């Protein structure tokens, strides 16, 4: 296996254009599991850890730009945690301290698993995904970027550069059900924003359908919203839980999230 380590974004994009089969790796918290389980044998790894342009986060005219190399540990820290509190809450539920220190937002986006903890909080905040290649930069709404279970809209020569969002500054939360208190993949999860400014409830569910799904409704429909969320999901039975349980738990989480955000 060959590991290519570009030192700049230009170099990274050139390598990706030349070697579209190269699998990007940042924290490796997903990819190394695939390697260990023998689910993947990429010939080439593209190590993005030395690309400074992908790191950290910035703010321009109120819009946040979260680099794809932003780690969960970084997302948990103020002031970012105060700007996107649901993302900070979700980040705290990821793996163990070691995994939170290594794992990145870009990894969640690249893997595009419906269980990706960062995805529901980004979805309820209307995040756009910034994709780059030698051909240029394009931007897609997260809901369009996620096209199926573990499938996304990346072209072979593209890399995820960043996520952009305008923080709603509205009450929001993230909740997750797992089979134990730490180091779990979600049985189901939910992010919710009670957006009084727009008079809207937005919820996104994880691990309850082929992709992370967004459900919106006017604030007046609060009483039915938990049912709406549960009905919108399309969960399955698997090792972690049953479809019936997931739908039930989503309803409970949605109800509690609204209590918390509308209090």
């Amino acid at each position, binding site marked *: 296996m060959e590991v290519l380590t570009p030192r700049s974004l230009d170099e990274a994009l050139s390598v990706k254009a030349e070697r579209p089969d190269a699998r990007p790796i940042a924290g490796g918290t997903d990819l190394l*599991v695939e390697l260990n*389980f023998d689910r993947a044998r990429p010939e080439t790894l593209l190590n993005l850890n030395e690309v400074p342009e992908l790191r950290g986060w910035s703010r321009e005219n109120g819009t946040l730009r979260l680099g794809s190399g932003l780690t969960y540990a970084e997302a948990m820290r103020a002031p970012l945690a105060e700007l996107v509190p649901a993302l900070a809450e979700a980040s705290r539920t990821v793996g*163990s301290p070691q995994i939170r220190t290594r794992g990145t937002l870009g990894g969640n986006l690249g893997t595009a698993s419906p269980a990706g903890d960062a995805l529901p909080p980004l979805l309820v905040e209307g995040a756009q995904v910034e994709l780059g290649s030698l051909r240029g930069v394009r931007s897609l709404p997260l809901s369009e970027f996620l096209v199926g279970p573990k499938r996304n809209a990346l072209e072979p020569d593209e890399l995820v550069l960043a996520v952009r969002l305008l923080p709603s500054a509205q009450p929001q939360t993230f909740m997750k*059900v797992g*089979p*134990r*208190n*730490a*180091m*779990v*993949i979600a*049985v189901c999860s939910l992010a919710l924003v009670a957006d009084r400014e727009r008079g809207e409830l937005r919820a996104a569910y994880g691990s309850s359908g082929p992709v992370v799904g967004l459900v919106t409704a006017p604030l007046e429909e609060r009483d039915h919203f938990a049912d709406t969320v549960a009905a919108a999901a399309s969960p399955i039975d698997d*090792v972690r*839980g*049953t479809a019936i*349980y997931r739908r*039930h*738990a989503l309803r*409970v*989480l949605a*109800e*509690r999230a609204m209590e918390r955000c509308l209090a």
Partner: protein
Amino acid sequence: MARLIRTEKEVEGRYEEVWTVVEEDALDQWPAGPLEVVGQPAQRQDGLQRARGEARYTADVRLPGMLHAAVLRSGVARADARAIDVLPALELPGVQAALSCEEVDFLDAEAGYPGAAVAAVAADTIEQARAGVEAIAVEWDESEPLLDPDEAIARGQLVSESSSYERGDLEAALAGADVVVEAEYRTQSVLHNSMETHQAVCHWEGDTLVVHISTQYIWGVRDELAEKLGLRPDDVRVVCEFMGGGFGAKNGAGDYSLIAAELSRRTGRPVRCALTRREENLAAGNRNATIQRLRAGARSDGTIVGLGGEFVNAVGWSGWLAGTDGPMQMLYGVDNVATMLRGAKLNSAPMAAFRAPGFVEGTFGLECLLDELGGKLGIDPLELRRRNHADADVLDGRPYSSKSLLECYRRAEPHWDRRHEVRARSDETWKHGVGLASQVWYGGGGPPSYAWVRVGSDGSMTVVTAMQDIGTGSRTAMAQIAAEELGVSLAQVRVELGDSARGPFASISAGSSTIPSMGPAVRSAAGDARRQILELAAQRWQKEQRTLSLKGGRIVCSDGGSWPLESLLGLLEDAQILGMGARGPNPTGMRVLTFGVQVAEVAVDVGTGEIRVGRIAAIHDVGRIINPLGARSQVEGGIIQALGHTLSEHRLLDPRTGTVLTQTLDAYKLPTIADVPEIVCEFVDEPDSHLTNLGAKGLGEPPIIPTAAAIANAIRDATGADVRSLPIDREEMLRALAALARAKERSGDRVAARPA
């Protein structure tokens, strides 16, 4: 003097009558309570070695020229391996030898479970060995697996003869009872998942087979391999210096050591055969699932008049009948008891002993049933247990060698009294409650076991015995016992163990028997060395020997004189004092058992079914405590392991194919530190005056036994729901709450609707 006697031998609850040679146990017990070294908390002597990575486990053994073995295993639940061709493997680079079930009798072509071994390859690297395994050509003749235990019983597919037990007249007793409860309990299959997987490195030195193996029984491996390979026992040398856990799954030699031994014989090179984590979760043993259909009847005053149980152990392809029926027979003073225990032979991996096999499962059923009974009677659970306390052994009326269960109950009271305050924390979402459960288990150990103590002129004291320390800290406990007897500090004593060629026979580390079997032998050896030291001292200082003793590193005379021990030992030069000791017999006509009670505090989220265990108080009675720190570790470990099988661990099979769905620690949910509650640990610490020169019983297993029932009973206290199936995951919790809501609706008692 050695005597040949006929005696009962017990391991993991299985008794057999055997001839055995025993030595007199001449030493009087020490006075109760903490002594100079014994009874004082001692850090592990090998703690730093372990923390620094210097301790050599079997997993660290890398011998010059060593080959690696990989094993071909069945991928399905039931298949016959036909026409195995290993030649393609032998043509691959690095592959040095291959064997299959067609040529060795320790592998079986009838692969009755997923992961059954049928062939193996040895190569220069593990990757080459795995490639070799891939290359082996096999025709698999698959057939429909049998996976349902009840169906297996109905079809007469049993692993062994069923076991029935009866005393009194159960049916008459239940007919005359004021209250009868009946319920079905289920426990799941769980996996040991020791940190160190099952493994062995074998090589031949002439005609001697040297086996490095992660084992709980050095001498058992020696005998088993000698028998299976047609060798004299002393032509097998077994080494295990450090071990990364076993929990009952490493009591035998295992096919991996036979594979390594045979491949080593063929290649003339050392061969390592180590299971991967996946293989560990497929084919290295498990705690079998059980179904328990139980009945209990009581008079309105709380006297339990009858207990009945139909038990099914889902044993798997092979194994033995662990005593799921044991707690029902032994825990309470009930006159009328009838049990039937059957073992279903299934196309799933064979069970192996797992920390109190049978009793963990059976205590869950019995102790939950008892609380359901108490609920109907309106009697406090602690009081109900007191009223039915067994004052003498209920199996045959023998006296207990010692029993302080009532004292455990007394000490449980302050923890039990917290329930009012705990319940009051409940709100709409979180319901809080407290539950308790009792425990009975074996743990008396037995002969034979031997130890030597060597005292040199430099004042060093070395305990030599070919026992294993399976990770419990036995090494340190043995050093404490020797130091106490020799009147020296713990730092002056070292323990050499772990090699059948370099020490006398030592017993198995299973059935909570290491301390009660080995401890008295070590004390006896140290006592022999002490006697010899005092003999020399009497000559050196012209005193009567009976006036001399060893204390604080000095030879002390009752006339007030004392001399540093070095002043005598220094005279030895190259001479040594060699003490020999043996484990004496168990008390005849007495039942040696361990007891305890645990009190659990839980909170249940009635919306999501999440369960949080906040606190567990454990009070156990295991005779004298040698090392309070080590004992506490055993209690914490037992409770944490129990939390796993109570709340999250489950070996999940595909219900149609029998494929194991939880082969990695990603899918198989062990508890994390975030799941661990506050653990309060107390010991009665009263020596068993009838048991050996120590009065100490074993503690490895007791703490894991009552935890599941205590948690389930706390859940009932919190919510009113009966959880009768392990693990109590969120779905199970919600099912129990829904069943409660339905029952209340039926009885007309309107309550707020529970989630479906």
